[in-house]
């Protein structure tokens, strides 16, 4: 089989709002029904409760925005502004914060394996699956009132349309026009709530093509790689801003992840 790596385009899971006749609707429904994604939620639960780092502490007191250790609906309310850190954070950024504060781990150690592989998924991937699973059914409602949240949204929106890099791409180059495909993968217009909702409501997700669980920070990282840009810093303000723009555009969607994708 030709070496076909993942690409910028991600397909939505449930046959909601298919732009054109989605010929993969059956395939997506059946793979989602028979998906091993719950195994990653199990792995995440283990890590959430596992004492680690110099302080030998677990993450069970991590405040994801709804109070220390509160998981229910927490993912659906991210990204948001966190007073204790003085900045807007998405899930992975906040998890990293808890690893460094609660567990006393250095940023360098906690981020040494950010993106895993089929044999060794990363902590962030396991934890993202576990935390996201607790928002199933919740309406997506990222932070929108705090000035820093507005600023993050504006930066994310500007980044989405910003053309740069050797191939002059912006996110909108691929995710800007309706009913378009890269190869066989549909390209949802992510700046349009109608198309953003079904997609953003199913990330992070298990990818059947390589048996890996993928997070949003990975998704943005891999997009910029294919945009022929230099590499984004993990959990930087720009990546959080893009996640804020996408989550805000998808505001109101019922979260159905962690999802299963091609």
């Amino acid at each position, binding site marked *: 089989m*030709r070496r076909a790596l993942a690409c910028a385009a991600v397909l939505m899971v449930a046959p909601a709002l298919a732009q054109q006749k989605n010929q993969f609707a059956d395939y997506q429904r059946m793979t989602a029904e028979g998906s091993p994604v719950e195994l990653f939620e199990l792995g995440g639960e283990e890590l959430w409760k596992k004492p680690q780092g110099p302080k030998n502490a677990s993450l069970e007191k991590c405040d994801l925005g709804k109070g220390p250790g509160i998981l229910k609906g927490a993912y659906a309310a991210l990204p948001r502004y966190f007073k204790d850190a003085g900045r807007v954070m998405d899930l992975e950024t906040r998890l990293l914060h808890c690893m460094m504060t609660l567990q006393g781990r250095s940023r360098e150690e906690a981020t040494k394996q950010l993106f895993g592989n089929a044999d060794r998924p990363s902590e962030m991937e396991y934890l993202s699956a576990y935390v996201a699973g607790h928002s199933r059914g919740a309406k997506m409602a990222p932070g929108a009132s705090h000035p820093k949240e507005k600023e993050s949204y504006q930066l994310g929106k500007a980044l989405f349309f*910003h053309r740069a890099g050797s*191939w002059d791409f912006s996110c909108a180059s691929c995710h800007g026009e309706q009913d378009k495909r890269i190869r066989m993968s549909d390209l949802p217009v992510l700046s349009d709530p109608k198309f953003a909702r079904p997609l953003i409501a199913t990330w992070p997700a298990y990818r059947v093509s390589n048996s890996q669980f993928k997070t949003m920070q990975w998704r943005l990282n891999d997009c910029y790689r294919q945009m022929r840009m*230099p590499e984004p810093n993990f959990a930087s303000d*720009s990546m959080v801003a893009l996640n804020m723009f996408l989550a805000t555009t998808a505001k109101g969607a019922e979260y159905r992840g962690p999802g299963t994708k091609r």
Partner: protein
Amino acid sequence: MKRAILLMFFSGLAFAEPTARDVTEALKRDFHPRGQAKMDRVPQDGLQRICTDTRDKPPAALAKQIEADQMRTIVFPTGSLMGDWKRAEKVAQDGRGSMWSDKPGAPAGGSCYNCHQISPQETSYGTLGPSLLGFGKKRGNGPEMQKYVYGKIYNAKAYNACSQMPRLGYAGTLTEEQIKDLVALLLDPASPVNR
């Protein structure tokens, strides 16, 4: 970001949208070089700046000027511009080239099938760009058409200022020979595209 903060302080109104310059500052702060993808790729050139600011719809006069500027970047080889269409299929299929994950100097591809239908036997093709099936048969393959196709692949923006098609020659992704092979893939009567 300084400007945005100042604005926020004074205006107290809803946030002014960050300008392309503000975004470039954010990219410089939040990205790092990796492999062949260095930070010199971050600052926008004039074309990228104008297309970003006008959401790819620059005023006609400005578009014409951009296209003229871009046309001057194209280096047309002398003689026939038709290479070997057999070699071109692989270039059209190959999605690598100019990424941090690609070894510098390793042969690059054009990712053409990501956006175009080209040879009839490949069913996994994209639709961001028009179908190129039967291109040579429909449009002929004289020197003028060869020049147009070569130029379009080398620098698509010379013909359409804010096109989404990458400037594959100008960006250094494809070699002269690879572009001539792609010209043959589209124009050579023997190519599956024209059968």
